[in-house]
């Protein structure tokens, strides 16, 4: 049973491939046409899966992008006499241009902006195809498109079928490559938390744009095939309904899975053929099922299959001997700190930081100076402005006033991801991560800033991309062992307890080789044993030469690790100095315990 399950996906894929390859031997032209349509729209669905399944953004314009590519190819071939092999890249380029045009204005904003802008695009495409009748043929579209020629063979009939199949398999391979590359993992991260991406030096806008660009380009690939499969292009086959069917295909097939979108496309582009005449009822039933699916089984068909298989495998698996962690990893956590000359002055300096929320002076003129290599702790009662200060330093809130400098270099006004890249890396009070990725993959997300290979390299699985992946994995392996998470490295992060997520976030932050590591209440909600673990980890990090700025409530931890202590109260620094001196400072005692005058 276990053996069968382990090989089931490969077996099923090979079976499906064999059937598809053999299909012309026994299926008539109509069935071949149906399969070609499924594969053509399947390319667009595979692309949409990168956007919707991975990055959790929605495009309602995928059919419109496909149309733009299909019309571009058709017009260039029929009216300008281009050959297929020059028109096809132009069609795909058109799709990419539309991706940029719609993506750049909308992707800096909330997720639903892209959904709305693409919805508008879907409406406009139909309008323009009718309006530009001289070019597009208006209502009747364009007929009589010459077949592509490859090695003197006209691609029509069976040859066209195999051509469409090969292109779709290539698209499948490429989307699979992207999905499992660092790009796919960063899509998954912004799908759950773009704040986390910023904290790791990754620009959420850029990642979203890459996701949408990939999504559009694969729709362009589908568009290149369409005119030859259908024999014509006309405006009404690319309406909003088709775009919505593509969304359905991705969700039904399984968001974020490899093959799911093709399964979904097979169902959604064959079913309507069988249900013509019941259009309205079919619409109601389909979309009701869709809503139910999102609520009850958001993982879709392929996702459900994967879960079922994983559960059965886990139950049936023989106990594997545990793999020992890598022996005493050499971390070079502070490599960047060591590479540059030690700071003459403070490594981090804050002067006159101010942040007001309405009438609340959350941070009200704070000065802070952190010495290189120290564990500097900021404490203060609830609402004293500690976390806000950390958000100001790391660029998550824009400061109303104040200067922030890392080793003398001003960092204020920079975007959060740029500050992280500069070497000020933070963790969160509530861990933010990609729950579907394993602990080790999550840690690896922190090292993406050092990867240089392009998304194209990842798409084609080129050696440069594979080398980047290997480097990331090796370093993530070291750091996950360093953080004491070796035994849970392959578990999905969503299944880890809170304490281990904290450690995972610290390991992930260390991937960036920070100059200063800023921790936001890492001990909150942890057991004493877990806090001891955090303490040991902090000491080890400190030993690597990384400066630590710790915002913390837990006084036991604070007094054990603090080398320098700053106390905030109501947005202002009320004490600053060595822990022993600060502890006996009367104003500190007053802030924590209150006095008669405070009570009055």
């Amino acid at each position: 049973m276990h053996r069968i399950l382990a090989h089931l996906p490969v077996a099923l894929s090979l079976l499906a491939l064999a059937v598809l390859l053999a299909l012309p031997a026994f299926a008539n032209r109509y069935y071949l046409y149906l399969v070609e349509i499924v594969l053509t729209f399947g390319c667009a669905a595979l692309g949409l899966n990168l956007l919707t399944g991975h990055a959790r953004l929605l495009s309602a314009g995928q059919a419109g992008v496909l149309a733009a590519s299909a019309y571009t190819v058709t017009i260039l071939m029929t009216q300008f006499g281009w050959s297929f092999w020059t028109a096809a890249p132009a069609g795909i380029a058109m799709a990419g241009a539309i991706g940029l045009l719609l993506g750049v204005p909308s992707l800096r904003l909330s997720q639903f902006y892209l959904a709305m802008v693409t919805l508008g695009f879907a409406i406009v495409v139909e309008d323009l195809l009718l309006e530009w009748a001289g070019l597009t043929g208006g209502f009747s579209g364009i007929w009589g498109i010459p077949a592509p020629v490859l090695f003197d063979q006209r691609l029509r009939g069976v040859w066209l079928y195999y051509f469409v199949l090969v292109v779709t398999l290539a698209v499948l391979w490429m989307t699979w490559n992207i999905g499992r590359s660092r790009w796919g993992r960063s899509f998954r991260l912004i799908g759950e938390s773009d704040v986390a991406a910023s904290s790791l030096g990754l620009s959420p806008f850029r990642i979203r744009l890459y996701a949408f660009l990939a999504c559009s380009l694969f729709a362009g690939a589908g568009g290149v095939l369409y005119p030859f499969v259908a024999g014509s292009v006309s405006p009404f086959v690319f309406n909003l309904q088709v775009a919505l069917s593509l969304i359905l295909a991705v969700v039904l097939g399984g968001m974020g899975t490899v093959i799911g979108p093709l399964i979904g496309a097979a169902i959604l582009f064959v079913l309507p053929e069988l249900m013509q005449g019941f259009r309205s009822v079919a619409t109601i039933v389909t979309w009701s099922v869709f809503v139910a699916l999102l609520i009850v089984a958001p993982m879709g068909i392929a996702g459900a299959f994967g879960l079922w298989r994983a559960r059965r495998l886990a139950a049936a698996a023989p106990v594997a001997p545990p793999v020992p962690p890598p022996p005493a990893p050499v971390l070079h956590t502070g490599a960047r700190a060591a590479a540059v000359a030690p700071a003459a002055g403070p490594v981090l300096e804050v002067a006159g930081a101010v942040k007001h929320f309405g009438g609340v002076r959350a941070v009200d003129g704070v000065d802070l100076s952190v010495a290189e290599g120290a564990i500097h702790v900021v404490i203060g009662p609830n609402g004293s402005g500690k976390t806000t200060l950390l958000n100001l330093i790391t660029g998550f809130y824009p400061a109303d006033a104040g200067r922030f400098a890392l080793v003398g270099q001003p960092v204020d006004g920079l975007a959060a991801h740029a500050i992280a890249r500069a070497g000020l890396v933070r963790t969160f009070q509530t861990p933010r991560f990609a729950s579907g990725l394993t602990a080790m993959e999550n840690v690896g997300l922190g090292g993406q800033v050092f990867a240089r290979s392009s998304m194209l390299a990842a798409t084609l699985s080129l050696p440069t991309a594979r080398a980047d992946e290997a480097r990331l994995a090796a370093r993530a392996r070291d750091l996950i062992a360093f953080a004491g998470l070796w035994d849970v490295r392959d578990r999905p992060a969503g299944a880890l307890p809170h304490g281990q997520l904290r450690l995972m976030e610290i390991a992930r932050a260390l991937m960036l080789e920070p100059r200063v590591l800023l921790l936001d209440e890492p001990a909150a909600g942890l057991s004493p044993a877990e806090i001891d673990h955090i303490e040991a980890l902090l000491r080890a990090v400190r030993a690597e030469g990384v400066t630590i700025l710790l915002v913390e409530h837990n006084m036991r931890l604070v007094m054990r690790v603090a080398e320098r202590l700053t106390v905030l109260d109501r947005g202002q620094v009320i004490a600053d100095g060595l822990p022993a001196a600060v502890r006996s400072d009367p104003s500190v005692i007053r802030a924590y315990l209150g006095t008669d005058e405070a009570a009055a």
Partner: protein
Amino acid sequence: MADVVNMILSGLVVGSVYALVGLGYNVVYGATRVFNLAQGDFLMLGMMLALGLYGTAALPFPVALVLVLVIVGAVGAVQQLVAVRPLGRAQGALGWVLTTLAFGIILRGIAEIVWGTEPLRFPDLLPTAPSFIAGVRLVPQEIAIVALTLAVAAALDRFYRGTMTGKALRAMAQDPDAAALRGVPVARMNLLAFGLGAAVAALGGIMIAPVSFAYVYVGTLYTFKGFIAVAIGGIGDNRGAILGGLSLGLVEVIGAQVAGAGYRNAIALVFLLVVLLAFPRGLFGTAQVRQV
């Protein structure tokens, strides 16, 4: 000169309906942080139900009006119950983007079965024949649309500032958990927000039907145009929704005059993209601080 005035007037009329849909978005978003993509289809539903009750069943208009608003409001609440509430938190924004979109399509499917797929003539409410004063074209029904939009905005403003329910809705948006602790019945307030938002959109549908047609496929267009109104105005800002809707109406009408009627939606899209590039938070809205 009169031509220019007429153009501006017709821009304001169209823009008012966009603004009403935008107000509907804000009612829902302002309380629940959900952007209801079925909003245009609620407008459609209001339109078609009014046609049925006032036109076909020949009920007195005030009775029909109240019935339509109550019915569409109830459907909005049902949407919250079946398509938004059950979503897991892990689904995030994508969850409600997908389910509210789907709900709109389901409404459209039902409307197709009941009312068919042809545009239907809607009986007059106020006179729809124009009268000309110095060449300026005045249509009572159109003037009523603009007036009603402003009245709805004013009423919403009083509701949010003046009543406990209104304040509770606003508090909920800030922090649902804290609001619940303070005794705000969050579950019921969610239903109210969705119902109220749907009813506002339905009102737009009833008002526009006599000067256009009652048609089951208008929803998507209004979903999009209403979004532009709030995106330009700053999401959550009712004054912005009015200004955004009106400016979109003007841009569309003037643009269509210059480029041709077929480019109307394209002009709206380009207008949206340009504004988003230059003013990501909208022309009239205020920036929001992100929570970390």
